[in-house]
């Protein structure tokens, strides 16, 4: 797997149930192995889907793993050629690096 930057909105150490209400995000940069992936937490000043989209664009994120996301934001991100794996519940990162994560996965 080529080096990729992934963003996961968080809520109490889980994938946040809502993209627009997340106040912290985990940014992971890795090249296929979860052990060697570089993780960084970003605390947002306030929950805002617009600001989160802005962060995703400015951070050059390639994949967003989230749970509930409004269609407008989903369409915007996919239009920006960002892969969005939504409706994910549970520990998604390991599954993602295994190449098995898909939208709607309940783990």
């Amino acid at each position: 797997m080529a080096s990729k930057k992934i963003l996961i909105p968080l809520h109490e150490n889980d994938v946040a149930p809502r993209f627009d209400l997340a106040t912290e995000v985990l940014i992971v940069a890795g090249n296929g192995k979860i052990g060697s992936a570089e993780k960084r937490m970003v605390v947002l000043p306030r929950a805002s889907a617009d600001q989160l989209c802005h962060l995703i664009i400015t951070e050059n994120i390639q994949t967003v793993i989230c749970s509930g996301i409004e269609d407008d934001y989903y369409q915007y991100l996919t239009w920006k050629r960002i892969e969005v794996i939504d409706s994910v519940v549970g520990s998604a990162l390991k599954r993602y690096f295994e190449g098995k994560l898909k939208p709607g996965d309940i783990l």
Partner: protein
Amino acid sequence: MKKAKSANTDENSGAFRRPPSDQSLAIPPHIHNLFDIPVDFCELLDQIAMGVVVLNLERKIVVMNQTLKALTGFSQKEFCGFTCTHILRSNICIQDCPVLRIDEKSGPKCIEGNLINTERQLIPIRITTAPLRNINHQIIGFLETIEDIRLLRELDETASHAYKFSKIVGRSPQMQKIFQSIPSLAQSDSSVLITGETGTGKDMVAETIHQASNRAKGPFAKINCGALPDTLLESELFGHQKGAFTGAVENKPGRIQLANNGTLYLTEIGDLPLPLQVKLLTFLDDKEVFPLGSIKGFSADVRIIAATHRNLEQMVRSGRFRKDLLFRLNVIRLHLPPLRERHGDVQLLLDHFLNTLSAQLGKKTLTLSPKALKILLTYKYPGNVRELKNIVEYAINICSDQQIRSKHLPSYLLNPEPFDMSEAAQQTNVPQAPLSDETGFIRVEPDRNWSDTEKRMIMEALIRAGGRKNKAAASLGWARSTLWRKMNQYGIR
């Protein structure tokens, strides 16, 4: 529920034990002692038309009904063992979880919020959370009902527009009378003559009548009889044949023909030249159009709505309007009252425009200071609703605070000239005066919108500054880059 002898409850300790997920699916919970034989609890929940979910003390989902599954998009298999936050995906669960606020003495809690379903739709909901107690009155879990309130929200929106008919806003008795008459007027095919001062909403009423009529699916063709020279107007109204005059290189259908099966709206009918009045009269009689230079007529099924701010009766007396045309147009007469006679509507329209224009201009909804409100309520509005809208738009643009004060209003409102009723009724054209005076106050013409005013302001500042942009920008209180951007926006070179 008290009769239910749940397999999941340890009655002695009052604690709640959630069965393993596979067990909960294999052995569905039953209600005992309600009927002779046990009742399937899940099936009972599925009969309820609103979303229902039962949570344990850890806020994990025990069971939810079919309606909630449909609302969230999640299935039975997926939710077992997860907290409701991850399945409901509601802002309430994240920001103000009602379950956390329930203690031994609490009753049900009801909160409105929204959820995002698996279809990525944001749905407004109302959650009611109640504690579930065992026979010893100890809380063993929670029951939540989730109502989809999309329909209620839509109804609320309609209710907030109770003083509205289509795009027309008003609650004065005069406007209510017009609102009541429009639906019945719309159903007939008779000609309508709308009269009223400038800015009273004649165009809006005409369009509303068309939209409420059986011709709504047909075209609504509008032509301003005062805007074109006579010959062009004739060609525009009735069309022309190829070669009818120099430049008529092809056949062109007129507006009447284009409005076939729809409505033709003739605005400023008082400005229609006399020769064309005769031709229009012929059309109203025969329902047949003869394009310029053609001997062949076309029949057109068109409803005529005409409007004018002029006094047609007076024009008939002075020989400037044909009496027979007036009679034919005046089948249904609708007079729109000037704003100064619509008691209570100024306040309503102020609120309406403050809300809509603030949103359009991307600003927070502003309020009016008592002094500014007093000025606006006592002003006579010779330009009627259009003038009021322009004043509000001006104030929103000028105001950088949370509240619009009298200093944010156009200066002519602060020293209004005595209002001449006869002048308002005559509606004569007033020559344009410079927008800003020596003191730098900006004067907004009643019939202009903010863009026109701003454009003129820039032009005048440039003229005063002899074309020097720096000086013009300084006199406007802008940065040079702002002036440059606005000049580009308005195409000023």
